[in-house]
């Protein structure tokens, strides 16, 4: 069981700076403080979602339902606000709904023994369908300002959404690295049977891990809904892949047992910077997917090269 989170992801950091410098050289608008704030804002939702995903992947699991949880929980939130339930109770209701939806995944894995891939693929369909059934595919829009500040408000010089994302990421760091629950979660991912024999309450761990993933998905839903002033059934489509990409790019292994929140943060920033830079330097649409694919692979290679040199091995 290795703890990767000692800023070993320097390769990724170099890559991020290299990419930033490259975009900056191509457009004078890229390296401005306003634009860097934009990148932070645009990375907020991936960071929140990927924080939960880091915990899940640390247990050697996967959560394909976070996009659907995001949409269904934000619809519940929106519905509550439209029915004159106050802003904060509505958010609480949405986040609780996210926890329950994630908890259902956990129960499926822990009690029914369904693999995480299958159960979350299944619930992804179910939650998305419920969102469509409830709304009949019609968006819910127009929320009070006290809610919308989560999308556009500022806390001093820092946008509120960025604050929330950094708080979620540091919270996840604390959970993963400093609590017994985090140690147990990584132990489960590292060696399930060994963890069980050592008395780790694996059922409870699985349920909690997926409930937390549901909570982060619904928190991401708060930001998305507040920023767009709209909750809709197709929100968060494909978000799980973006989150998984950020996590794996950040060095968390698919095989579980290790987790790197700093790596996840860097992965999410790379994805955010890429999306922003492609528009700023005006890359034609057909080439954007090509560039995104290449950057993903290069980022991982940059990281790998550095680690190999450090460990003195090649695979």
């Amino acid at each position, binding site marked *: 069981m290795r703890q990767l989170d000692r800023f070993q992801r320097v390769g990724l950091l170099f890559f991020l700076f290299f990419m930033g410098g490259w975009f900056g050289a191509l*457009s004078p*608008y890229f390296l*401005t403080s*306003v*634009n860097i704030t*934009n990148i932070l*804002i*645009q990375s907020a*939702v991936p960071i929140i979602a990927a924080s939960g995903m880091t915990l899940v992947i640390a247990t050697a699991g996967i959560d394909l339902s976070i996009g659907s949880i995001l949409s269904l929980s934000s619809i519940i939130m929106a519905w509550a606000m439209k029915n004159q339930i106050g802003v904060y109770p509505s958010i609480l209701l949405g986040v609780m709904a996210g926890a329950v939806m994630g908890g259902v995944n956990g129960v499926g894995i822990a009690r029914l023994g369904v693999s995480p891939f299958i159960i979350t693929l299944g619930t992804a*369909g179910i939650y998305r369908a419920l969102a*469509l059934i409830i709304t*009949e*595919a*019609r*968006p819910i*829009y*127009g929320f009070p300002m006290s809610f919308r500040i989560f*999308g*556009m408000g500022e806390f001093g010089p820092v946008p509120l959404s960025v604050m929330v994302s950094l708080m979620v990421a540091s919270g996840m760091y604390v959970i993963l690295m400093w609590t017994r629950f985090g140690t147990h979660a990584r132990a489960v991912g590292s060696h399930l049977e060994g963890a069980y024999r050592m008395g780790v309450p694996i059922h409870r761990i699985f349920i909690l891990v997926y409930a937390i993933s549901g909570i982060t998905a619904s928190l991401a839903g708060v930001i*998305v809904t507040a*920023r*767009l*002033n*709209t909750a*809709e*059934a*197709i*929100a968060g*489509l494909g978000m799980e892949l973006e989150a998984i990409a950020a996590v794996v790019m950040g060095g968390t292994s698919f095989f579980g047992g290790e987790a790197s929140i700093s790596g996840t943060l860097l992965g999410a920033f790379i994805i955010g910077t890429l*999306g*922003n830079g492609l*528009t*700023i*330097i*005006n890359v*034609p*649409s*057909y080439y*954007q997917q090509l560039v995104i694919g290449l950057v993903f692979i290069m980022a991982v290679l940059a990281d790998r090269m550095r680690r190999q040199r450090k460990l003195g091995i090649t695979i």
Partner: protein
Amino acid sequence: MGTKHRGRSRIYLRMGVGLIVFLCTFNHGWGSPSLFQEVRSKTLSKLGQLSKPDPKIKIGAIPITLANPFWVTVKEGYEFTATEFGIQIDVHAVPQENSIVAQLDILENLVAKGYQAISAHSITPHNLIPGLVKAKAKGIPVITDGRVDLKAAKEAGADPIVIRLVDFYEQGRIGASFIVKEVKKTGGGKVAIIEGLPGAPQAEARKNGAKDIFSKESMVQLVSVQPANWDRMKAYHVTTNLLQAHPDLKGIFCANDVMALAAVEAMEAMGKKGQVVVVGVDFIPQAKKAIEEGRLAGSVAQSPFLVGEMCARTAIAAILKREIPQEMFIPIIMVSRENIHLMSDWK
């Protein structure tokens, strides 16, 4: 003869719409017909009157996906017609805009179930062709909108009834022309396009229509064409980045309203409320509200309800062995603050 005749009827149509706009503007509350009812009767007249069919007939309809409000309204058009003619129309849809194989499966299932006619809105020009061949073998007429590649279908041995109702290219042109008109009022300037999913037929056509208008106007400069994949969040970010790269941007044409509404939100969050003329396509209810509030400049409307209604009526006409004209374009309305009050019953 055909083209000339069509050209003339288009002029009449425009004059007609202009007259209606005039009448409705100056005769408030005078019992003037709504724009929707006008457009509807114009559209329905292209197919002509239909006699009541046998009430036992069953028609299968395949809109693309009911996860998109556009197709939900198309479905309502089908259902309205079913009630009006007292027949059964079953609507089946796929889960997502890109479920191309699942859509073919649905068509083949409906062919096997023995409907008297099927109306299918194919996702790509080719994905339904194998099903169309099977329908032909069973003698079931299939109505498809203009997206099917008729040449490839004929070569494969299918014979669908192709009708053209919606003109995505024209939608792009009309939306962009409105932006040009508005931007010219302030001396011209930079414009941009936010396109849908690259490669999707309606995304490409709307983009190309807008591009063609922007590129032939000397007073506007098209500075960027960026994809946002119909996604609200992505469009929000693209708009933020566009305004970052071009702080003096004057207009954005978005290939649908969802992206246009996100563009408006992004623009307002950057403190540039009202600086950019944002236009979308589809005239969804949320866009209507945003136009009324003066936040969204305009939306290009081509009634989805009439798409459903016309396809259903064409299916009935096919069962009745009626002559079916190929081009039955639904009139396009450029909705803005000037005519939004005429759009209360639009669907």
